[in-house]
């Protein structure tokens, strides 16, 4: 038996070696593009050329003066907030349903989770059919039910198109939020709920005065994920409307793609893409602080 330390005994070296692949991955595929995007947003770079000129805040000034950008910014806010409100309401309701014991619960839960597993692009393509100007199942169903006179051009009118985007984004995040809320509900102390029952609280008082306040940290995490996923998503809007009609339904990612890649103005595209970063950081910090503040230490 040799008394020398082998490589496997040297935890300091071993640690570095084992961390290296992950570190390289993060640095090369996340860190470098991220820094590059910030640098590009201050440049006059364009696609197809290696010319790199310093532009200062010119790109930012240009996009802020651009009504399409301002529209995209508002749309991003509407889609993000709208879909998250919808998600929280629906997920809370669904979590209450899945809490009860009923036949076929496992199957139902599996079906519920499916949207989360479907690739966004495929799902969005399916949704374009649901919202199709001629074949829209929504329209035909409403028509047969006698609720619709006339016709809804879902993806053809700005207001309706934005509604469609909100619906699809909510549909996409909803399963995840439900699962998180279900886990949260299951972790609530049972006797606190029972105390509320004995104290005479009905369903809504129990939900709004006991369960949801206790679930606040969990809800905050679900919302944080939802906000980040929705605000940075390119696929849904790109496939559903492509930013149209007439650039009215752009969100920041689609506009960045249009300007930077399709329009070859890398500088402006990067500025649009990076624009949301400070907001998302603030949202993330606020949410995490909220979660920590309401965390309950001991009963």
């Amino acid at each position, binding site marked *: 038996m040799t008394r020398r330390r082998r490589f496997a005994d040297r935890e300091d070296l071993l640690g570095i070696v084992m961390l290296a692949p992950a570190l390289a991955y993060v640095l090369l595929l996340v860190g470098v593009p991220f820094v590059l995007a910030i640098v590009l947003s201050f440049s006059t770079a364009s696609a197809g050329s290696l010319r790199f000129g310093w532009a200062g805040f010119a790109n930012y000034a240009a996009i802020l003066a651009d009504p399409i950008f301002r529209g995209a910014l508002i749309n991003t806010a509407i889609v993000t907030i709208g879909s998250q409100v919808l998600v929280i309401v629906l997920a809370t309701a669904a979590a209450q349903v899945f809490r009860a014991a009923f036949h076929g619960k496992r199957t139902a839960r599996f079906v519920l989770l499916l949207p989360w597993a479907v690739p966004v692009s495929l799902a969005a393509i399916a949704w374009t059919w649901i919202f199709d100007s001629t074949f829209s199942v929504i329209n035909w169903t409403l028509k047969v039910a006698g609720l619709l006179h006339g016709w809804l051009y879902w993806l053809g009118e700005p207001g309706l198109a934005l509604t469609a985007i909100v619906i699809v984004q909510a549909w996409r995040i909803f399963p995840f939020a439900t699962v998180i809320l279900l886990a949260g509900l299951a972790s609530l102390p049972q006797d606190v709920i*029972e*105390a509320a029952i004995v*104290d005479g609280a009905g369903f809504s008082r129990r939900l709004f005065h006991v369960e949801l306040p206790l679930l606040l940290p969990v809800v905050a995490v679900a919302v944080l994920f939802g906000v980040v996923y929705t605000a940075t998503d390119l696929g849904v809007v790109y496939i559903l409307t492509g930013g149209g009609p007439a650039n009215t339904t752009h969100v920041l990612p689609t506009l960045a793609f249009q300007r930077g890649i399709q329009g070859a103005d890398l500088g402006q595209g990067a500025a649009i893409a990076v624009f949301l970063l400070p907001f998302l950081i603030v949202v993330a910090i606020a949410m995490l602080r909220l979660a920590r503040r309401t965390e309950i230490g*001991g*009963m």
Partner: protein
Amino acid sequence: MAGVEIRHLSKRFGQLYAVEDVDLSIREGEFLVLLGPSGCGKTTLLRMIAGLERPTSGEIDIGGERMDDAPPRARGIAMVFQSYALYPHRTVSRNISFPLEALGLPRAAIGEKVRWAAEMFGISPYLDRYPRQLSGGERQRVALCRALVRDPKVFLLDEPLANLDAKLRNTARDELKRFQRRIKTTTVYVTHDQVEAMGLGDRIAVMDRGKVRQIGTPQEVYEEPVDTFVATFVGQPPMNLIAARDPALPPGTLLGFRPEHFLPRDHFATGEPLQSLPFAVRRVEYLGSDRYVYGNIAAGATDDTTVIAKIPATIGRAIPEGETLEFAVPQRTLRYFDAATGARRS
């Protein structure tokens, strides 16, 4: 205020009866303790009275009204949980006011009631704190306060002292008893601690495997146990049970006697009718106020059941380990049980 009537109450979980055909009559203003080992069904019984558990069959009346189908909020009960189940996101004052808010009382009335209850339990200084900022004893009082403000017809307490440390438990027990005497509300109290049960209960219902074995005052349950389960569950150390060798008794009789009655023979006054038993001492435990002496009855050697004698500190004589001494039990304290069924024989 009102009593609770329970008739033929059963609760089945799958094949297992948690509570089986229980009849219980709790008088108005009474402090009744449900006592039994864990899993005996006492908590399930309490939860059925509260309405948190649906009976499989049977009836529950509270204050003369049939209640087994009524939701908990309609039963006029208040419950204190073992964990206290305070609302962690609400201050003490908002915890206490919760049941009143649910009743839809005006804000001024709620505030007044909360202050009154907090005063009663001496927790007024903590009204603005959160439960996590309170000690165990303070939390327990908040839980009692929250139960009190509803003016319930019946208090249901599920081991409310179990989470307190031993020292605090004694004071809390005393406070609880005084409080109940003052407000005279019917109380059902669940515990597995027989000291608590004896100290608190006007009557004790001893439960085992879903059934009530005996109901009676602490004295009745202790001195006249109806079967070997009650005899050995109530009392610390438990009642000694040995096979009787007296030919005058029917075969298969168990002789029962309390450890504190099993003393050196020369300790008893002359003239007291005694049952002498030679005691082979194995080990002596010194506990300050008492000595516990472990051993077995020497004669016959048919039976090596461990027998315990509890000798108060007032008897100072030496008890050497490994020797056989002449011990005795007063005849009047002997209890006889059927070895096969465990039932009492008079």
